[in-house]
């Protein structure tokens, strides 16, 4: 049975200054909302954050940013956040942009014990600078290395006490790879259930990747509310 935290404060208390953390989510979908809030409260500093995006100004990772807790951000798209732009231009924040598919694969590789792999994305672009280019079957590829983290914070729909996780719809995104790539993975779940309640054939993250869990209620803010007018 995995550790079940009694508070979000307790869940993040081992995350120290200068840690590298992965945070699941695409935009604001599938982010571990309360773990992020607890990190803001903990006031831990000099974080390297690996996440596809960096939240918006007043929600998600944007809150860590506003509180100046992040030294370096590794992601693929950071355009939703004005404070991000200000800190980069002011030299307060280092940013490493990585093509989204490469980022996903680097994290997957990190969790899977693959130190490096070749990918076509980025050949002939600024991303290729300083990277090995190698030809396979007449096509050029870049060498990219795997990514791991001291802590991974993920958000799942349901999780059981063995650490098995199931995600909902597009809230899955980067969460499963990050769960595998964190030395310590903390899962915020919408619902904590008993072992055996999740269908063994339908588990997205096997429990081996998860060190602790906590149930959390999600706000699930929507960035681009887009609807069809009722007929």
């Amino acid at each position, binding site marked *: 049975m995995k550790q079940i935290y009694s508070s979000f404060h307790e869940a993040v208390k081992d995350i120290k200054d200068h840690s590298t953390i992965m945070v699941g989510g695409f935009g604001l979908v599938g982010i571990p909302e309360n773990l992020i809030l607890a990190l803001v409260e903990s006031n831990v500093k000099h974080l390297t954050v690996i996440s*596809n995006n960096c939240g918006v100004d007043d929600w998600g990772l944007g809150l860590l940013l506003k509180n100046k807790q992040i030294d370096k951000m590794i992601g*693929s798209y*950071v355009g939703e956040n004005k404070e991000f732009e200000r800190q980069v231009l002011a030299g307060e924040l280092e940013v490493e942009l990585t093509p989204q598919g490469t980022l996903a694969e680097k994290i997957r590789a990190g969790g899977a014990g693959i130190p490096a792999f070749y990918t076509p994305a980025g050949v002939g672009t*600024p991303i290729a600078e300083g990277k090995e280019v190698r030809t396979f079957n007449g096509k050029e590829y870049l060498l990219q290395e795997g990514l791991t983290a001291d802590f991974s914070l993920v958000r799942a729909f349901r999780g059981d006490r063995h650490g098995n996780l199931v995600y909902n719809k597009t809230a899955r*995104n*980067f969460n499963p*790879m990050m769960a595998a790539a964190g030395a310590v993975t903390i899962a915020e779940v919408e619902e904590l259930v008993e072992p055996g309640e999740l269908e063994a054939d339908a588990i997205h993250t096997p429990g081996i990747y998860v060190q602790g869990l906590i149930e959390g209620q999600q706000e699930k803010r929507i960035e681009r509310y887009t609807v069809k007018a009722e007929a």
Partner: protein
Amino acid sequence: MAVQKDKAAIREMIARRAEQEIKSGYYVNLGIGMPTMVANYIQPDKEVVLQSENGLLGIGRSPYEHEVDPDLINAGKETVTASVGAAYCDSAESFAMIRGEHLDLAILGGMEVAENGDLANWMIPGKMIKGMGGAMDIVHGSKKVVIIMDHVNKHGDPKILKECKLPLTGKGVVDRIITDRAVMDVTDEGLKLVEIAEGWTVDEIKEQTEAELIISDELLKMPSSK
């Protein structure tokens, strides 16, 4: 307001022309912005599966208000629905589909395209870099990559160039360019003009295109927006 309306009409014309690239049975990735609009014009008799790189194979229509699920968005972060028979996956699997060339077609926007198929669509030096998102993967991952964009920029300068000036998104990745004025194919011989919009002459298009244009022997009229 007249200009506004013209812009919308032009975007619709480009989107409708882009829709013709989609054949029944295709798996398609539509980029953020104008490419997303193409979905609105897909002929109902075509069976098409739209892929969203954030982990959805089978994007459906926009939800009615009562259907909105905050856990269900497209790559542009808009709330969507899933089509019948859709499948969700994680981001690594989603880009495995893309990188492994399982998609038939990607329709993306562009800032500049060069005659050799180079594409620039993600950064302008001196301006804040927002990030490439999935674009650098998607340009390598589809059997056909179509770029849709205005033929010239707001100053009237060409966007279809001998060489891109902006940092590249991908090298030699574009197969076809669709603009408000023409359709061009990247071929081994060079950039070939294959369709031209009503109201424009070949000479005018040549003038508005920095890249050398080969004129197709079977030059067609581009369908108009009406």
